[in-house]
């Protein structure tokens, strides 16, 4: 009887939990909207002046101010801003004269591609390095991994990028130079996803693929090192905590080999908090690795926001900031869902 009545109760708990997640996400998004709106009002940049220019007459200035709705009370301005954003209208960029959303659609795939490759490098190398460092705690590999991670943390990323270009591009010629692709291959492949590597592979344009790969490999490796440093240390730390648990001792007593104990028991539990770490690391790279994109002339979101800020193009800056915030919220939500999926204690 209890098991029958338990099912609707369990469904109610799940529904309540799902509602909680949705409400939390909506509240965070509302907070993000408010912050981006206030940034636009607090910054000492006059959006009307940026639109009409310094030589415009007072009449023109006033007319544009009314057109932009800046004469309205602040709460009405916020309401109008929120409604526009929810309809996908982030305003028009002064710099490019395009709708901001169109610009972001153009530049974001470049950042997405770079950040994804950087995170892949970080995860594929960082997790195994962290595992070996934890399994051989205090040993040679652990010490080497610590120094390697310390370099990743402490060396400024722009310096690393410049040195990388100097060595691997200028001296050794192993990689291609700054930019996303050579001019000769620009717009050869019609965009499908916006990610050049994916699009060129899907279209079977292998020459374009090789060229894009030659350009992306160095900035991705630089970002990957940063990601690897963080992920490897966190993997080591989470795994050591799990290896100290008594259920791991039980697994050894069962007769499992040490590597099976580590991989099948301890690592799987350590991966639960690691999901959040990887998601946050990915979000950090996605927010537009401004310095990396600048050093490598990478036409991504970071460079777009930086150029817009330097030109006082506030619609573009706020639109870009909003997208970065949404990426954070989305990845947080995703990691929360994965957490609930893999850990029965928090379901």
């Amino acid at each position, binding site marked *: 009887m209890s098991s029958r009545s338990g099912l609707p109760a369990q469904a109610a708990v799940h529904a309540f939990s799902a509602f909680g997640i949705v409400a939390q996400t909506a509240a965070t998004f509302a907070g993000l909207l408010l912050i981006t709106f206030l940034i636009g009002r607090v910054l000492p940049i006059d959006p009307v002046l940026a639109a009409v220019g310094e030589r415009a007459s007072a009449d023109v200035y006033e007319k544009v101010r009314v057109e932009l709705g800046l004469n309205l009370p602040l709460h009405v301005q916020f309401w109008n801003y929120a409604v526009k954003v929810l309809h996908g209208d982030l305003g028009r960029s002064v710099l490019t004269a395009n709708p901001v959303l169109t610009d972001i659609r153009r530049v974001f795939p470049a950042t997405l591609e770079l950040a994804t490759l950087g995170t892949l490098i970080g995860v594929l190398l960082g997790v195994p390095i962290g595992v070996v460092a934890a399994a051989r705690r205090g040993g040679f590999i652990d010490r080497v991994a610590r120094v390697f991670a310390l370099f990743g943390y402490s060396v400024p990323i722009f310096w690393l990028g410049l040195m990388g270009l100097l060595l691997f591009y200028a001296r050794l010629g192993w990689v291609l130079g700054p930019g996303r692709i050579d001019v000769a291959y620009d717009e050869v492949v019609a965009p499908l996803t916006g990610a050049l590597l994916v699009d060129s592979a899907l279209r079977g344009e292998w020459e374009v693929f090789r060229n894009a790969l030659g350009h992306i490999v160095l900035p991705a490796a630089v970002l990957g090192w940063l990601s690897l440093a963080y992920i490897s240390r966190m993997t080591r730390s989470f795994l050591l905590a799990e290896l100290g648990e008594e259920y791991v001792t039980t697994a050894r007593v069962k007769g499992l080999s040490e590597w099976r104990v580590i991989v099948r028991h301890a690592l799987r539990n350590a991966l639960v908090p690691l999901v959040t770490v990887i998601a946050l690391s990915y979000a950090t790279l996605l927010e537009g690795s401004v310095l990396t994109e600048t050093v490598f002339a990478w036409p991504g979101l970071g460079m777009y926001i930086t150029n817009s800020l330097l030109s006082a193009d506030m619609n573009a800056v706020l639109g870009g900031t909003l997208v970065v915030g949404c990426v954070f919220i989305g990845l947080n939500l995703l990691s929360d869902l994965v957490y609930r999926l893999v850990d029965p*204690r928090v379901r």
Partner: protein
Amino acid sequence: MIEVENLRVRFGRGKGAVEAVRGLSFAVKERETFGLVGESGSGKSTVLRALCGLVRDFEGTIRVASEAQRRTRTDEFHRLVQMVFQDPFGSLHPRHTVDRILGEPIAIQRLGNADLRIARALFEVGLGPSFRFRYPHQLSGGQRQRVSIARALIVEPRILLLDEPTSALDVSVQAEILNLLMRLRRERALTTILVSHNLAVVGHLCDRLLVMNAGRAVEEMTAEDLRTGAPREEYTQALLRASEGYRRL
């Protein structure tokens, strides 16, 4: 069945090294229940861990079923010897169901008939089939310890090592688990080593016991000697007095 000669276990190196066990010797006969008693830090759990292979670096001789043990243990050893831990909350994998916890040793030992064995093991420790697909956090402390005992016995070992199996449980549950262990030991003709700081538990469950202090053997006696309050050594007498609890002055 079990022979330990001049066992020494040291943790760490150099000046910071700690000698947890210092030249301990004892023997346990087949079907006998042997107790290791001592205060915290006396080295009794370390002896158990060295016996089942969790502490690999030891000096001296450990013989189980006439076979001298080295650093690593074979699958046959894990079939012969199993251990139940003190903490029922920590010793079960938090993301595995009872079914998976009990199924893993069967798979490691390639025993087959997993469904039947799991159902039987749960029945033997007094848990119904409804517990089979629950997670550890959905069980009480006593139920978890029953699952731990089922996990240890599912490969049908001849030797069971018990590391303070009731000390983390409520007093009412302790009696249930002790009675369960006594029944299983009798039914399965197990050779058992029980580590405890609780002399009442050891006197209730064991045939003989060894009192330890600071990694050394203080005194070996029968449970009858303990019950009649006839220990020779002053340390054992103090331990016995302490276990009687507080007295109002």
